[in-house]
């Protein structure tokens, strides 16, 4: 029998049964998926959008807090060191930011957020237990090596969050763990997870902890290997992870290159594609699907620029009322020609007929 079915065993997983049942139920609820009605009783039920309910909010420093979620059923457990996008609604508008997950692998996801910027400040100051947040599946390659190896973690500021997930995953569970953590922070009060790290280091010989308070001791220099040789003499034989401000990442990367060990270093970068606002506007528009580029001034609607370049773009009223021209902004910054407001959110749908480039722009058409 099995052979007749060509080897592919028919497994009806729990998820499969559930989604089949929901599909069947949709005849009762068309044109809306049945989950939309289920959500009246279960706030985490959702067909398209993963959600999580906040289960705890723990202050870490005066300006940061750890927020833990219980995610909806479609969440895939994260690996230590990965990040996820978290969405909250501020003044009615959904805003997304990416955060490293600080909880150990397999545990409910948690993010440790420092109150800098609108979304992070909102998360630290306004989140309450029971709030619903929006989530996207965990991602990222900043993860632990497959086999046991001696490790060196170099972190600064909130760059410790993904590394904290790694340490929490590795140190208490593996007797053969061998981790040196060199963490830089301004001073003791600004330093994240200090007590927990000290307890872990006291309890487990596998964790060696170096705190560097930069107000007193200055930043670690990567100009040569002097600082590292002092802080962790065998650094060359360890697999290294770096997470912190961009200058630190660049400097560390350069040092490892010079030492001839670039493969042993893993770097986690954030904020790589921030679009600066260009005064007066204008810039290069790249139409990704059509593979075309044009240079425009700050008053030409993106739609016109595209059409002149021969790009096939959706269009309608050409005056900003019908929204037929909505096109995803892949990156860059655009200005609404009616209000002068600028938008730079990746993936946001923009009205090309009344928007102009304010710097380089990439559009999905």
């Amino acid at each position, binding site marked *: 029998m099995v052979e007749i079915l060509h080897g592919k065993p028919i497994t009806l997983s729990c998820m499969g049964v559930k989604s089949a049942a929901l599909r069947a139920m949709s*005849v*009762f609820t068309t044109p*809306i998926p049945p989950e939309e009605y289920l959500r*009246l009783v279960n706030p985490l039920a959702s067909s398209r959008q993963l959600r999580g309910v906040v289960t705890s909010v723990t202050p870490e420093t005066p300006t940061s807090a750890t927020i833990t979620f219980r995610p909806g059923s479609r969440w895939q457990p994260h690996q230590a060191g990965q990040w996820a996008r978290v969405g909250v609604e501020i003044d009615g*508008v959904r805003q997304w930011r990416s955060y490293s997950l600080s909880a150990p692998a397999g545990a409910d996801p948690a993010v440790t957020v420092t109150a800098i910027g609108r979304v992070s400040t909102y998360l630290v100051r306004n989140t309450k237990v029971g709030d619903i947040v929006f989530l996207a599946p965990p991602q990222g390659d900043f993860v632990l090596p497959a086999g046991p190896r001696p490790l060196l973690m170099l972190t600064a500021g909130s760059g410790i969050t993904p590394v904290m997930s790694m340490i929490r995953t590795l140190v208490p569970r593996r007797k053969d763990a061998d981790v040196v953590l060199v963490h830089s922070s301004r001073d003791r009060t600004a330093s994240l997870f200090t007590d927990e790290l000290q307890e872990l280091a006291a309890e487990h010989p596998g964790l060696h902890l170096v705190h560097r308070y930069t107000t007193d001791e200055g930043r670690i220099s990567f100009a040569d290997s002097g600082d590292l040789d002092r802080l962790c003499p065998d650094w060359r034989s360890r697999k290294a992870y770096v997470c912190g401000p961009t200058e630190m990442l660049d400097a560390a990367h350069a040092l490892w290159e010079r030492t001839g060990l670039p493969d042993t270093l893993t770097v986690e970068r954030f904020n790589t594609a921030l679009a600066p606002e260009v005064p007066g506007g204008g810039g290069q528009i790249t139409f990704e699907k059509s593979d075309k580029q044009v240079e425009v001034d700050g008053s030409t609607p993106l739609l016109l620029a595209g059409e002149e370049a021969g790009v096939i773009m959706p269009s*309608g009223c050409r005056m900003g*009322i*019908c*929204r037929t021209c909505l096109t995803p902004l892949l990156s860059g910054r655009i200005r609404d020609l009616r209000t002068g407001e600028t938008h730079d959110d990746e993936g946001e749908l923009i009205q090309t007929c009344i928007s102009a480039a304010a710097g380089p722009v990439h559009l999905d058409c």
Partner: protein
Amino acid sequence: MTALQKKEHNPIAHLSDQDIERLGVELDAIRDQVISTRGSSDAAYIRRVIKVQRGLEMGSRAVLLASRWKPAFVVGTVGLSVSKILENMEIGHNVMHGQWDWMRDPKIHSTTWEWDNASPASLWKHSHNELHHTYTNVLGRDNDLGYGIMRVDEDQRWSPFYLGQPVWNFVNACFFEYGIAAYDLEIGKYFKGKKNKEIFQRDLKKVGVKIRQQMTKDYVVHPLLAAPTGSWKQTLLANYLSNLTRNLWTHSVIMCGHFPEGVETFTRKSIDGETRGEWYLRQMLGSANINGSRAMHIATGNLSYQIEHHLFPDLPSNRYQEIAPQIRDIFNRYGLTYTSGSLPRQVGSAWMKVIRLSLPNHLAAKFAPRPRKAAPVPLRFKTAAPKADAA
């Protein structure tokens, strides 16, 4: 009515180009003021309406499971009718206009919303948002002027076909959602050979699928669900009555938007090179409001604020009421007539027009209603020279 440009007493003759541009600037300022204060209470409003509608629908359908018992039949039918009206008007129409796109909630978004109606969202958005809202009341461009089956303006040429238009209009009212689907398909244009055959067939398939799903839900699976209590017949009837009620209601509301006496129409040529101010002015004169209670406004999807909606089709519907006094003030200051009336008056006025214009113009003229009182022109305009190209 006759196209504004052909009228003996042109109601905008006193406005200069600069006046019209200034009017545009004032309206832009109102728009900006609403946009800058859009926020969490607006978001909470639309979510609450959606929640109430879904709860009401589920509750009504649950009650209908026992609809053999008469009170359950009545309660279930009324509840389902109200829920279907809310779903199409305050929610569907407005979400598909993009009024809530600013929340960046992919579920309450013009690009993803699908409504409880025979016409698929994509087709409706094209004929409504793109054509009707851009070319509002322009003869020969805006098919909403009579939907291609009626003559609602003296400047639309009479033919004997229109003698039957009171009947066509009533039939259209009873089957309005299918009328909308046929309209959005541009069937007339297709038979005249003006619509691409492939596109028509693709659209026709979409409509077919949509109608099948709608019918299966209302007339097959929910009655089947009620079969164990012996209520399938009553449930079937309740679904039919709810759809009928919604058809009659939405048809009435939509007739009130542009057909009542006092609403102006425009010639095709008049919009060549139209400025933003002139576009606003056309929306102001081409729409009519309905006066009534808060509940009535919500049941019309705030299309009772048709003038405000046509000026700002993508502002959240819950804000139209708030800006209405400011808009009315602009009408007064610029000597323009804000056309508004109670629901019975506006429905009556629209029906009168449909009946009257079923006759050719020379006969229809005998039954012409007394014109509504025009707004007084403020003093400051009276000294100004009339606009040269107004006549």
